[in-house]
């Protein structure tokens, strides 16, 4: 009732403001516009065009930016009777192209056989200096620098029945000059990837002493 009265009053007001308009349609339009602007109680929720301009609900949910947490130690799954736990397939060698291609081959094979690959990472390159004794004298001189590259593919929840087949395929396709081994994943392996913090260790040692 109140709203109806408001409408009537407003109609009178707008008629005074707007110039003489003949058609009913234009009158209705102007009254609608005026209603939208002046009315505070939202009667138009029932209108079919309600919320026509809304778009915020269509955007992806933008989470508040959180700071990077410390990388958590993942729970290493234990082996069950039919499945292996988490194990690392290490590929290492002097020739980087061979090592990388072989590790990529293993990763693709796992994807193809639906074997779950947890992680696939590289360990830092180790440089070995080959020093030879000089013919005359006792001084050693640098002959060559050999770099050992290592790539690791971490596999979890592999079925025990599939494992011999997988190993067979991988061993038969091992290239020359590439070392291949399978190791159980452990906490120490995970921690070995992190950099050492000498100041922290120094302070800890001071506290303990």
């Amino acid at each position: 009732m109140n709203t109806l009265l408001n409408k009537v009053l407003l109609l009178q007001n707008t008629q005074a403001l707007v110039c003489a308009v003949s058609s009913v349609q234009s009158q209705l339009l102007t009254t609608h516009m005026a209603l939208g602007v002046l009315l505070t109680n939202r009667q138009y929720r029932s209108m079919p065009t309600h919320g026509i301009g809304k778009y915020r609900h269509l955007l992806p949910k933008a989470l508040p930016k959180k700071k990077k947490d410390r990388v958590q130690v993942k729970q290493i799954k234990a082996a069950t009777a039919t499945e292996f736990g988490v194990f690392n397939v290490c590929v290492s060698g002097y020739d980087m192209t061979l090592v990388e291609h072989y590790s990529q081959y293993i990763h693709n094979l796992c994807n193809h056989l639906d074997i779950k690959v947890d992680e696939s990472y590289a360990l830092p390159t180790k440089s070995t200096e080959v020093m030879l004794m000089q013919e005359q004298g006792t001084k050693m001189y640098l002959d060559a620098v050999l770099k050992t590259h290592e790539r690791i593919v971490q596999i979890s929840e592999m079925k025990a029945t599939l494992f011999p087949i997988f190993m067979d395929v991988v061993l038969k396709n091992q290239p020359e000059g590439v070392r291949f081994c399978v190791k159980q994943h452990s906490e120490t392996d995970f921690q070995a990837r992190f950099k050492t913090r000498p100041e922290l260790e120094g302070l800890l040692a001071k506290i303990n002493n």
Partner: protein
Amino acid sequence: MAAPFNRVYRPLWRIITTTTLNKVVRNVSSTRRQWSAGVASPWALHGAVCLQRLPVVSQDRSPIEESFIELMRQMELERSLLSDHELRLLEDAARMSRKQEEDYDSDEEEEDYRDKEIVTAQDLEDIWEQKLKQFQPAPRSQGVDEKDVSSSERCLAESLILLVEKDVGSQKLWLLPQIQWQTGETLRQTAERALASLPGADLKATFLGNAPCGFYKYKYPKDIQKEGGVGAKVFFFKAVLSSHKHLPLEKKSFAWVKKDELQDFLKPEYLKQVRRFIMAL
């Protein structure tokens, strides 16, 4: 592959068993209990080992592969930038040509040139070439006759399987090494025992897993069947030869064969089952 087939098959089996009547189910369970109590199965169990010698060298390339590799090498060479050593070679060559000119002034050269004057890049290259000539790569084949099946050094580019000639009943057959299962041991231990019991062989092998890779079932001939035992079931386990150097085996009873040579040695039925799990590169 066997795995997806099993996945489809199992739900069907479950549906069938759940829809059977309770009576039938109870009967089945009672007979199962009876069976585990002491009734022996008429089938004898055997464990066998599929010992493989892995390829030592990579396979030779086919002509198409060779030409493609050459093409890729050339493309990579043409697209690459000059390395430090190659730049030094060019600089030295330019310096030599400048030295030959009449109005050459050695003070105009750069500071760090004086160290490199003694040993030029070309000298280094010559030294390295000399060293390369002294290097002897290992031979790609050990010089063993390719047809000699008793040597494990043949066909280094392919994987070989060990076969044993055994007396089965009245005839001599070529088989994968197998031995009868004894109570109280796992089938994998049976396979390990089969490998260890080979006469005259000191083979160190790594078994690839506890799960068998293949299965073969055969019935005894009629006259032996009356003594008890319908036949035998053989479970195969895969193993990889770990030590390459071992004493040469007796020529007559052992053979290292490739997958395509298996048909010359094995019986057709046996071959059909064995072929399923042997993988040639």
